[in-house]
């Protein structure tokens, strides 16, 4: 089996008396793009700083290609990594000084610096920007320079701490696609922190879900995002409807769950009389005027309480005895002649409902 590129074991980290992280183990494999995902205050950025060897954990071990990190080797190994901060800070002066900062502190020979500069120049088309002062850059240019000054270092692992959070929507999209292209082209090992599940899906191969300083789930991104284990995480991965229910019947994998006098049929695990949370993503809900004959097991009649246009789709809030959110295209909305106060049927497949055990 291939040795992980970076591995952390039994990491415990305190700020004062407060325990921030308690992690048994996690690793980063060669060429993969790992996402550290979780709500605000989960300890994501702290974990990233620890993994990138900028912060020393209170307890625990870190291994790089099997070599244990200690005070002596930490600087040399850290120089194989680059961390991009949430909000980049630029050093006073010209763009070129910022781009060459990392190479200069590593004392890279001049000839090598020139070769790398030429390479990065062609990758990012920086020529016009190099002699500009950093305070003359636009937001998009700042991100470009920030990425360029990281990639010129040819890092073994690139760490990114919510790199898009300060960008406007269009610049963000542009930068994400640019980064995705570069990561794939260079087969760059990447670890990045985000609380935006769309970003995570676009850029990540594997995900670590962090909650209150602990890893509560990890695995391939689609698997983890479809089956979150905690209510807070479910909200972060696009679940808009979370309702509490009680398992009433169980036939093999099919559970019948009561929610405010409605019965849901769900494929999942649980015991009779157990209380659970049902998680439903709005894109998994079908809306019709008349209940059709279909294989969909769950149909609920509800009254439309709110209509919110959101980009290409319309978000509908339906009161079925519980509040259900659904997405519908503009065309379907008009075709079905929906409106506030009107009634509609909502259908949800038994396999599209995810169960979280109560107390999580």
């Amino acid at each position, binding site marked *: 089996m291939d040795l992980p590129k970076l591995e952390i074991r039994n990491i415990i980290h305190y700020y004062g008396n407060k325990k921030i992280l308690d992690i048994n183990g996690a690793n980063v494999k060669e060429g993969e793009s790992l996402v550290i995902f979780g709500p605000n205050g989960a300890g994501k950025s702290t974990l990233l*700083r620890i993994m*990138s060897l*900028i912060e020393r954990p209170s307890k625990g071990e870190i291994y790089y290609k099997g070599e244990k990190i200690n005070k002596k080797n930490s*600087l040399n190994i*850290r*120089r194989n*990594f*680059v*961390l*991009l*901060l949430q*909000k*980049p*800070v630029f*050093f*006073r*002066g010209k763009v070129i000084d910022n781009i060459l*900062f*990392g190479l200069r*502190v*590593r004392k890279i020979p001049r000839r090598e610096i020139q070769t790398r500069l030429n390479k990065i120049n062609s990758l990012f088309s920086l020529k016009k920007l190099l002699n500009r*002062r950093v*305070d003359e850059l636009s937001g998009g240019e700042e991100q470009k320079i920030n990425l360029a*000054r*990281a990639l010129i*270092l040819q890092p073994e692992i690139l*760490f990114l701490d919510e790199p898009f959070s300060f960008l406007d929507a269009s610049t963000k999209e542009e930068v994400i696609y640019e980064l995705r292209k570069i990561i794939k082209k260079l087969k760059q090992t990447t670890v990045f922190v985000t609380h935006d599940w769309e970003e995570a899906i676009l850029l990540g191969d594997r995900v670590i879900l962090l909650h209150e300083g602990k890893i509560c789930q990890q695995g391939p991104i689609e698997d983890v995002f479809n089956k979150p284990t905690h209510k807070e995480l479910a909200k972060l991965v696009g679940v808009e409807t979370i309702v509490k229910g009680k398992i009433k019947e169980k036939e093999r994998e099919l559970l019948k769950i009561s929610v405010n006098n409605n019965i849901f049929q769900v494929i999942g695990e649980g015991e009779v009389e157990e209380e659970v949370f049902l998680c439903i993503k709005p894109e998994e809900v079908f809306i019709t005027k008349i209940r059709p004959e279909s294989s969909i097991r769950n149909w609920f009649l509800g009254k439309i309480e709110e209509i919110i246009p959101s980009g290409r789709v319309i978000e509908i809030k339906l009161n079925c005895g519980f509040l259900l959110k659904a997405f519908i295209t503009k065309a379907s909305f008009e075709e079905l002649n929906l409106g506030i106060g009107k009634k509609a049927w909502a259908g949800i497949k038994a396999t599209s409902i995810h169960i979280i055990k109560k107390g999580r």
Partner: protein
Amino acid sequence: MNIFVEGFIKAFKIILGLNPEIFKITWLTLKVSGIATFVALILGIPCSLFLALRHFPGRKILVSMINTGMGLPPVVVGLFIALFFWRSGPFGSLNLMYTPMAMIIAQIIIAFPIITGFSMSAFQQVTPNFYLQALALGASKWQAIWAMMKEARLPTLAAIMAGFGGIISEVGAVLMVGGNIKDKTRVLTTAIVLETRMGKFGIAIALSLILLALTFAVNYFLTHFQQRGERQWIYRSWR
């Protein structure tokens, strides 16, 4: 009015005459205040970095002490140094009283809090993420601190100017611990006091002009480094 005109004429004659005694006094002034500023800088910069970057119990008290020290009356410093170096004082055996060394020590004590206080706020003005950004790009701890010092060089040089300006123009402490002894501890400020007292306004004005020129020259030199490559951004506004 005559007293001014005569004084200035005499002053220019003295300066142009390159009086060796005045040269000696000027040189000692520059030496004492230069060394004191340099030592205060060597001690003050690490202290200011430590106070700016670290949070520890008792930090607020230390910062308050530094801030109080920035307004320390030189005569009080002079008094305590004199008590320490007096023949019967705890360091009397060192025989430092009425020597340039005692003057340097007094001036270090005056300049240290000024340089430390100003540089500390200079480092604090650099964004907290600056240090992290330098580390994130592969800088060692010391390289990151150096980058931070470079970033804060404008206000840090202002701190040096304030420190130097504070001690070169100070008279109380150097008079008390130096004694204004001719050819030994007489500096520009103490000489000005003496000459004015004796009614020799010409020499007093000459010494004042030299002191002003010296302060200006040193500050001009530091300003040159401070403002190198800096550009002002003033936006055109309506009013």
